């Protein structure tokens, strides 16, 4: 078996009396799209937050390319090439779209203006931002200089997705990236995910949209009550099988 790019073993996270992750495992193989599905509150977001450094698990191990890593914050995961779109989007509401897209990776002017005066290349960042947004099919955007807080729910999500797709270098993690998106925009995001995979990056996709999941995933990780209870493939199981396992209506298949 190939070494997983990203692997989690026995992760646990509790909040007081609430158990968010309860000894969960996860494997992400090179070049694959791994979907993570599960009921609300199954611990999907908590699991990927642990992978991306946004929360520090109480116990368990995370391996990147087979080597143990301990991310204490999102920057460290990001530096290791893991790019994440959080369910809460993590945008700075007062900044505009371009600023948000390039947050933490701002581009400077060429020449001394950039190197000495550290001047940002606003024009270029705006142009690129406009390009990224239209790639996602967000055509209704009327003003690229709008602060993100004044965008519609879907537009805001598109900003977050565009950011991760543009900058991921090792793994891209997307937590419900299409939840607020329209049909067309949602399909664009699926295409974008495929593009990312075709660039050789594996992708973790959390989604409640079964047609999307079955259309795009190579493998499907099913989370239930804080644990991985099964890994299936779109070939081996049908959508209704998956839903039945996820909700506990059917027993999980034998462990792989």
């Amino acid at each position: 078996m190939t070494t997983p790019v990203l692997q989690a073993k026995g992760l646990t996270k509790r909040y007081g009396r609430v158990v968010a992750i309860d000894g969960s495992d996860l494997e992400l193989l090179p070049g694959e799209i791994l979907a993570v599905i599960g009921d609300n509150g199954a611990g999907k977001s908590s699991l990927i937050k642990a992978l991306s450094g946004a929360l520090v698990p109480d116990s368990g191990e995370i391996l990147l390319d087979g080597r143990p890593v301990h991310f204490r914050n999102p920057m460290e995961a990001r530096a290791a090439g893991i790019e994440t779109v959080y369910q809460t989007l993590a945008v700075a509401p007062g900044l505009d779209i371009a600023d948000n897209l390039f947050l933490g990776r701002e581009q400077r002017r060429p020449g001394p203006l950039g190197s000495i005066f550290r001047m940002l290349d606003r024009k270029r960042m705006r142009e690129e931002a406009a390009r990224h947004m239209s790639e996602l099919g967000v055509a209704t955007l009327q003003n690229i200089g709008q602060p993100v807080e004044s965008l519609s729910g879907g537009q805001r999500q598109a900003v977050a997705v565009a950011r991760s797709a543009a900058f991921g270098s090792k793994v891209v993690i997307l937590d419900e990236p299409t939840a607020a998106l329209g049909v067309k925009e949602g399909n664009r995001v699926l295409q974008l995910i495929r593009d990312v995979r075709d660039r050789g990056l594996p992708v973790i996709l959390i989604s409640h949209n079964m047609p999307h999941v079955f259309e795009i995933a190579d493998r499907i990780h099913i989370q239930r009550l804080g644990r991985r209870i099964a890994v299936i493939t779109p070939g081996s199981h049908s959508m209704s099988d998956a839903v039945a396992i996820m909700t506990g209506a059917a027993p999980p298949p034998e462990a792989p």
Partner: protein
Amino acid sequence: MTATADFEVRRHDSFGLRLQHLLHGNPVLGPLAVLVVAIVAFSIVNARFFSAANLSLVLLQVTVIATLALGQTLIILTAGIDLSAGAIAVFSSILMALFATDAGVPAPLALLLGFACGTAMGAINGFLVTRIKLPPFIVTLGTLTIFFSLNSVVSNSETVRGADMPGLMTWTGEAIPIGDFRLSYGSIIMLLLFGFFAYALSWTAWGKHVYATGDDVEAARLAGIRTGRVLFSVYTTAGLLYAVAGWILIGRLASASPNVGTEYNLDSITAVVLGGTSLFGGRGGVIGTLIGALIVGVFRNGLQLAGVEVVWQGFAIGLLVLIAVSLDQWIRKVRS
């Protein structure tokens, strides 16, 4: 129905909407309008108000507060607050004065030592805010009393006279006459600093990070910004700015006195808020603060020239501040 709609849209386009566009893009126009109104009003009351000599006086009088308010703005932009601003400025001024006199250190070095102390005091605030994760209000309240107390101990509550100091220490108080207008070196330093930070906030990555951190610190962290570092840099920079304000203060008073500055915190925060920066962080900027500081200076000076009695000046200032922000609010009111 359509007719009405069309009419309404067109009506808005004509004046309200255009004005709103302008103000939307330039949030400092609100405070600026207030400043202009105040200047015009006071000039009408007393013609002497609008003379070059008097206007240069107002600039001179706000220089220290404006420099403090510059550091305060940085901190408030990150959703913090700094109650120790005045204490750091005064303590730094005492330290540099004592270095240059009693300790006999050469003036430029004494100055640098004073700046270093201010920076260090800012760094202490920053450390407590970012590492121990204490609320800025309580951190700076604590350091405020600590610095003021150290200040009394170190200075023995005694004023260091400018006449005993090397010229460099009081240089900020000297002025270049431009006609009747007297521009002090302190004011020049202050204006340059404002220019520098206006640039840094809107044209550098650091500035973007300051805004993002103040806007939503958790989102900024998730977006990959080292919010701890940003905050630390802001508190440290503010400390340095307060020390510069301390130097300007020596020039202004031609002495370093441990007993000034009790009102500086509230005054500097007032300037920031009048300038349109939100105390909740992430919104505003330094140019507004400069205007805010000038508004307060104009009020103080204008009321005195208008012959308002001392007992009533407090009343009038309070009222004017309220009117000023109401006016600003009215101007920027974008029907939500």
